[in-house]
């Protein structure tokens, strides 16, 4: 019998509420006592700002809530507030996130621990609201930490963990929390709301220390630099990113100790992998049809499993390679694309193949692009993927990239 994943809420232990993934993040902001929040509406991120606005209007939350005139200003305002020692929250979706791009590039270099919710949305054109991961993935090379969650409970918990890790003086990097539009941002589920006391014990106050922009600590941030300086500055960000896994592990261990919810391996969740021949690797809510398909196929005697990637940046290359090399074939379910990339595959597949390259044992990695623009991936789609993988495991030649659920 399959085991329920640890990421679903244990009912009845704390106060529960029927809330969406977006509302769960807003609740995390309240519990984290965020100081400055900026907003600019775009679906599906706007559901967070609506709920935060409600919390502020109802007197449940005390913060500076600023509706900016566009996403660029939205991200610039919190960047500056954060440099002055404020705990900040912001976010966007799709092309809104793109409009903020210049602000997004400067934030990690200045070591600003900004927490942003990315309500994943297809990039225009066509103007569409449905989920695609390409929006958040555009900052993958810039020094942002990126995490994908798949339940409202995980969204709330991960937001608290993100503050703890990002604001650690060893790190000071921004973090994007990716939530699938519709499937997570707009779906209400019963969520355990931690107590304020628990959160206070878990999350120390943000202390910007020597980098605080304040008259008592006279510094200049972001002076112009020439070729004598840039490489060293980049190397510092590299070092900070390199320290993330260790700090993440500490935070998850502390989270479990204080809140009692176990996430196990912080970087990825394994489901029915102990004896699996083949697995699907993916991010976000596609885990749901995948888990259902796994339970169905296991009853038919097929040894299939899932690895759900949470942290994409830093990419857990070593651990993931170790995990994936146990299987006979790996299928990556990419809710994104990278036109012109090797094998015309998605972003996660390329990263996964790269991670496996130095591994002594390298299973075939097939890429499946699906669910773009919010298209549903249903259980039969996942069964098809598993059957392709089982055939590949037996040595059958399969295309490196396939599109799932396309009208062709």
């Amino acid at each position, binding site marked *: 019998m*399959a085991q*329920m994943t640890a990421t*679903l809420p244990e*009912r009845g232990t704390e106060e529960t509420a*029927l809330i*969406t993934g977006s509302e769960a993040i807003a609740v995390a902001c309240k519990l984290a006592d965020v100081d400055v929040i900026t907003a600019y509406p775009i*679906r*599906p991120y706007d559901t967070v700002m609506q709920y935060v606005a409600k919390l502020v209007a109802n007197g449940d939350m005390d913060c500076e809530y600023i509706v900016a005139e566009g996403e660029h200003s939205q991200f610039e305002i919190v960047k500056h507030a954060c440099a002055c020692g404020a705990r900040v929250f912001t976010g966007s979706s799709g092309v809104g996130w793109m409009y903020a791009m210049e602000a997004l590039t400067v934030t990690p270099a200045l070591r600003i621990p900004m927490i942003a919710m990315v309500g994943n949305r297809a990039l225009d*054109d*066509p103007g569409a*609201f*449905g989920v695609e991961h390409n929006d958040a993935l555009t900052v993958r090379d810039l020094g942002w930490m990126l995490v994908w969650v798949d339940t409202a409970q995980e969204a709330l918990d991960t937001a608290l963990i993100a503050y703890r890790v990002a604001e650690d003086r060893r790190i000071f990097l921004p973090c994007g929390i990716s939530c699938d*539009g*519709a499937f997570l941002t*707009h*779906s*209400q*589920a*019963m969520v355990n709301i931690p107590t304020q006391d628990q959160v206070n014990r878990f999350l120390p106050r943000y202390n910007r220390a020597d980098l605080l922009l304040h008259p008592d600590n006279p510094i200049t941030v972001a002076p112009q630099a020439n070729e004598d300086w840039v490489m060293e500055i980049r190397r510092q960000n590299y070092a900070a990113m390199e320290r993330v896994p260790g700090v993440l592990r500490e935070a998850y261990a502390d989270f479990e100790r204080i809140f009692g919810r176990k996430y196990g391996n912080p970087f990825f969740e394994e489901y029915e992998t102990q004896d699996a021949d083949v697995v699907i690797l993916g991010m976000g809510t596609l885990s*749901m*049809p995948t*888990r*259902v398909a796994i*339970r169905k196929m296991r009853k038919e005697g097929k040894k299939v499993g899932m690895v759900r990637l949470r942290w994409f940046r830093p990419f857990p290359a070593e651990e993931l390679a170790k995990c994936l090399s146990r299987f006979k074939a790996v299928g990556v379910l990419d809710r994104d694309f990278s036109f012109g990339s090797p094998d015309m595959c998605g972003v996660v597949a390329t990263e996964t193949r790269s991670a496996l390259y130095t591994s002594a044992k390298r299973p075939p990695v097939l890429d499946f692009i699906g669910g773009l623009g*919010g298209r*549903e991936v*249903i*259980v039969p789609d996942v069964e098809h993927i598993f059957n392709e993988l089982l055939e590949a495991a037996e040595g059958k030649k399969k295309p490196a990239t396939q599109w799932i659920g*396309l*009208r*062709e």
Partner: protein
Amino acid sequence: MGRLFAVEIVYRGIFQKTLAKNISRGIVLAANLEGKPGTSFGRYGDSPERNGIPAKYFAIVATDDLTLEEGMAKYEPKEVDITVCVDDTLCKGLESWAWYGLQPINKLTRPGGTLMITSKEPAESLIPMIHQKHEPYKLAVLKGIASFSGLWVYKDDHTDVRILGAIAKLLPEMMSLDAVKKFIQHEWKDAVKAQSATNSYNRVSTQTVSPSQGNPEKPFQFTLPKWHEMRDGVAIPSIAQGHKMEDPTSHASGGYQPARNPTFKKYTTRTMRPVVDFDTCIKCTLCWLQCPDSCFDVTPEGLYDANMEACCGCGVCEAVCPVKDCVTMVNEVSFKDNSSQWEAWRKNKDGYKTWLKGTIENRPVRSHGFRYKGQYEEQSPEMLEIAKQG
């Protein structure tokens, strides 16, 4: 494997969003009081909601977490135990933002499941509007007017709790009346609301609708093109030029009928439609100018015929018409087809006049509810009185 329950709430975008959300949340929270996990969500494809466009909320409840996950592993349920329809004009079918074509109101209602409609019409008037279904299903009519309000407004006319009470009667395995009452007490601390739910629980009844009953028409639908059949560059053909109209009796040609979107007919967007008295029309052009949907065809003699493929039922034409009783908005439930009024008038002027008089005099009361501030609230006392009776 445990049992899965699904309820859809079909509503008119914006005006009934809060109502639909309340019903859906109420189901999940009441079932949760009895230990059943659940989820509630509005269909993403319906957004951004526009005035009156049909939209849906879904409540999914299961006896255990694994079963719930099975119910959630798709964009939306493919079959529901109960379809709740909170505006009887939606019985004619749904064209939403989420798909192309017309979907029967009972499409997702499972065989033997229930279609629950809030209406002041008797079942015999509603059934002919509803598309036929291959398998028998049950119909429950909950007396009441379509509860409309604003996007952020909660209209406390007990429609939500009455529907929850009725659902508890029809699907007690999902949630009991006790759970519904407990939820109401927790959410609103209002004993009168809990009593309204009980009244509706006690009085709700169903009748079976057989496959031979209902509208036999096949709903219009479209096949979406394959990726290589589509023009690239995210470009679509625009609507073609319009053309002259032809008089059905004299065969004179003239006027102008705009060409219209062949894939979106707006038949189900409106709750009311204009009827026009062509004998009193002074051809002032105001309805034609002001219509936000260019729904008026210009006839060869210069009259204006509201084309039902394009009319959203907004009522602007009635508001701007300077002639008394020349344009009158009438409840959509009064009409059986979408044919041209002008053609009927041209073919038989006396017959048309009789039809027009009868249609206006016998129209079931219906209001847009946004003509003046406070109009919605005026409907509440009537609804609360109905709630008392069950």
